[in-house]
């Protein structure tokens, strides 16, 4: 598969999901980019903005097995990964796979489960395998996690640890739609759209699971010029020296930015990455990977403000202005 075919499929996927999820093109695009870059996505937004709808629509158009875990304070790690259960007939322990053994996993309200349970996803997300009682089992391919969390209700929640956050390629903030978009949503509902009965809406399956894997492999052919690597390095390095950032992004962030930019380039039919790809994806890749100084937080500075500032200063390669 070449990048033109990749781009064609990507655009079809985006269009098909857009039929169900109105007015969230950027979110859909970032999520698809993350999927093809072999990454995971953390969706943050208040309830009712279509986070779950997005994931369910993805499951349908991608032709991937889809499972959902509703994270609650009493959720145990084995409820996620599965575990060994004694089979009296066989007189032996037998492994019962948990919901993580799927291709598309929706971890709904992930910050409602304690850190121990959240960490159960660590190995699955990074290694794409699950180890139970010393036995490592590979997860099906492709595998990606889309987690959601509500930024408003902080009572009874467990903020994701940095190590867990770092596993997410993107953190995407979903905001309220504009009045015109909201009107379109209402029009859709008047025409009979029901988010709870998505199967009846007739979303087409655009690709199969094995095609997703093939599309992921296509990204290896996307060229990254040396100046682009310098640009990525510069941006990530600046997060480590920024005055408002206490802890900057890790090298994993650089790798994530590189992978995402290749997917972004291919989605536009290019077999090479341009600085604009990096600039467009940096906020989503970096915002959850930096920790602000408390002073900066008190002043109301957000990670996005810091990253915007960095992008305004980082010199673009091969620019006419230098």
């Amino acid at each position: 598969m070449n990048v033109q075919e990749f781009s064609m499929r990507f655009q079809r996927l985006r269009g098909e999901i857009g039929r169900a999820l109105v007015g969230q093109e950027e979110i859909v695009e970032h999520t698809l980019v993350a999927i093809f870059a072999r990454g995971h996505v953390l969706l943050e937004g208040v309830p009712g903005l279509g986070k779950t709808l997005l994931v369910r629509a993805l499951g349908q158009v991608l032709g991937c097995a889809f499972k959902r875990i509703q994270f609650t304070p009493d959720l145990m790690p084995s409820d996620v990964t599965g575990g060994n259960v004694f089979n009296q007939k066989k007189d032996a322990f037998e492994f019962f796979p948990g919901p993580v053994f799927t291709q598309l996993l929706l971890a709904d309200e992930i910050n409602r489960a304690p850190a121990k349970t959240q960490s159960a996803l660590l190995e699955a997300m990074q290694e794409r395998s699950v180890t139970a009682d010393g036995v490592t089992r590979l997860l099906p391919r492709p595998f990606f996690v889309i987690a959601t969390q509500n930024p408003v209700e902080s009572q009874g929640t467990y903020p994701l640890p940095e190590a867990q956050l770092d596993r997410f390629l993107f953190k995407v903030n979903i905001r309220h739609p504009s009045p015109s978009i909201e009107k379109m949503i209402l029009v859709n509902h008047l025409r009979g759209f029901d988010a709870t009965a998505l199967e009846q809406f007739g979303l087409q399956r655009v690709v199969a699971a094995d095609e997703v894997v093939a599309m992921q492999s296509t990204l290896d052919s996307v060229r990254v010029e040396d100046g682009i690597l310098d640009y990525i390095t510069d941006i990530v390095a600046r997060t480590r020296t920024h005055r408002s950032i206490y802890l900057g992004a890790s090298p994993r962030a650089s790798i994530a930015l590189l992978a995402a930019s290749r997917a972004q380039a291919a989605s536009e039919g290019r077999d090479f990455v341009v600085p604009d790809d990096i600039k467009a994806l940096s906020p989503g890749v970096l915002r959850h990977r930096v920790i602000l100084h408390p002073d900066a937080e008190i002043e109301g500075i957000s990670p996005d403000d810091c990253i915007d500032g960095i992008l305004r200063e980082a010199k673009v390669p091969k620019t006419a202005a230098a």
Partner: protein
Amino acid sequence: MTQLLVVALLAGPSPDQVESAVRRVLAKEQYRLCHEGDYPLAEDEMGWCPLVGATSSRCPALPSACKAGPQLASGKKWRAVFGRSGSGSGSGSGSGSGSSSEDEPRFIRLPMLGGLGQLLLWLILGAGIAAVVYAIAKNFMRSARRSDDELEPETPDQIAAAAKAAGGPIETDVERLLARARAAAARGDYARAVDDAYAALLRRLDGDGLIRIHPARTNGDYVRDLRERAELRGQVRGIVRDVERVQFGAQTPSSELFESVFARVAPLAQRTLAALALGFAVLSVLSCGGAAWKSRGPWDDTPSGRRAVIDFLNELGIKAQHRLTPLDRIGEAEGAVVLLPGVRVDDKLWSRLSRWVDDGGLLVIATGEPRLAKRVGLTLHETGAAAQEARVETKDASAQSVVAVPDRRWLSIPASEADPLLARGGSPYGAWIEKGKGAVMVLADDYLFENIALAVADDADYLVRVLKQIEHSVELCDEMTGASPTNPVTSVARGKLAPLMGQLLLLLLIFFAFKGVAFGAPRDPRPASRRAFVEHVRAVGIQYAKAHAKRHAFTLYAAYALDRLRERVQLGGRRGLSGLAEAVAQKTGRSETELMRLLVEAQSSRDVMASSGVVSQEDLSLLRELALLLKETGGAR
């Protein structure tokens, strides 16, 4: 033709239509003679006053202006002066020269300087010239010295390479970037050529204020900047796509690619120059004067002006205007041509006019010049008598129109050559002469074509009846006809701007010799390196934070605040916090209890320091309250 004229005088618009058209025109505010009782009339315009009467329903203020008597020497003379200069107020406008009784326009003269003053003036002038010459010579010498000291690169590419190596200025001149692109392409360095061509495009867009170039901005940012210019955005996006394919993709730059990019960049990069050139060309053409004008300035609104007549004729469907095109090109004229005082007609031109009349044109001679009347076999006489009426004499006795004009001139007509049109007593005022397929109409003067004539008797009615049925367009020719320059060079010569333009060109040549094409050194502004005081404070704060010494900084500030407060309220024998709180309360008017709480918390912060290194939200609130208190008691210092 005579029969036609007779029919014409009886046909045409009804008297009511004429009357309402006259009233509509004279009601306009620009015709101040009808709206201002103290409007200054000129001596020659006073001749109309006996014809106006005690009241005038068309021009209500005119009788009052007549009563005031002459305010100006000659309305026509003033009009001629301003008409030739093409500016200024009119004969009776009352502004500037309007209230003056001088015959000549007033010129501003500089006061004569004494000997010392003249000496100083010449010294200053000489010093200025010497300074300019010295500056230019110095720059030339410095440039020559630099050439001797170091071998400077000469080609644009060498300059760019040298600048880049030295971290020097960035090329921002569009023309030089394009030249550099062409040079690189000629050398076979197509990657560089594409880069330079693209840089030229960006610099042009930046110069036009459409984008903002910055080292941290991507090509996508520039394209997004153009979102309000959809067409341009599409063009730039296409160029960007090709450029990025070379810069970041695997495409090998080639001659074809460069030509393709350059062909799209050049028109965009040079379009401002093209627009300027086009604008200059348009202005040049406009400066050469058009074919016709409806008005030539405020003086045209005066009683002796023509604008009201033109407006009036236009109201009734006759296309009337001043003719600026030279009468040499009379062959292009359609309709009647009216010759008015000031028009220059020599023998050659007269023969052309005669041929034009023979071909069917209508020429109205109203110059009041005996020379022109003589050309058609009529004699013009000066009377100098009081104003009288001229009655329309037609073969139809029912015609009741009365044309009233001041009695200055009359015609004598040989019996067989012309038909009298208007008669004043036994003396003809106008005559009609058939000539070939056309005709010549001669009037003893131009009074019928003056604005003020519309306010008097049936002058307007007569004028429109004559002109309407004979021709549907009228061109008025006077001193401005043929006076406009035909090309920019003539315009400059007539404006006496040649010496100035020559000096400017010389200056440009000197600059060119010194600096080359660009006069300014092309470089981006240097970023400000000096930091604001608040940034230093913030940096110190960050260092404290990094050292986990926030609590320490906080207690230091609390101690500083307490010391400053004690100092400011000049606490005498009362040493305790309660005494301080009382003194501060007296000074600021704040609650003593609240102040006591604040001071106690500030005092106790030192004790807390040992037990905890963490600064809480309450501590920050306390810090801000102390800062506010310090400000209230005498500023932050």
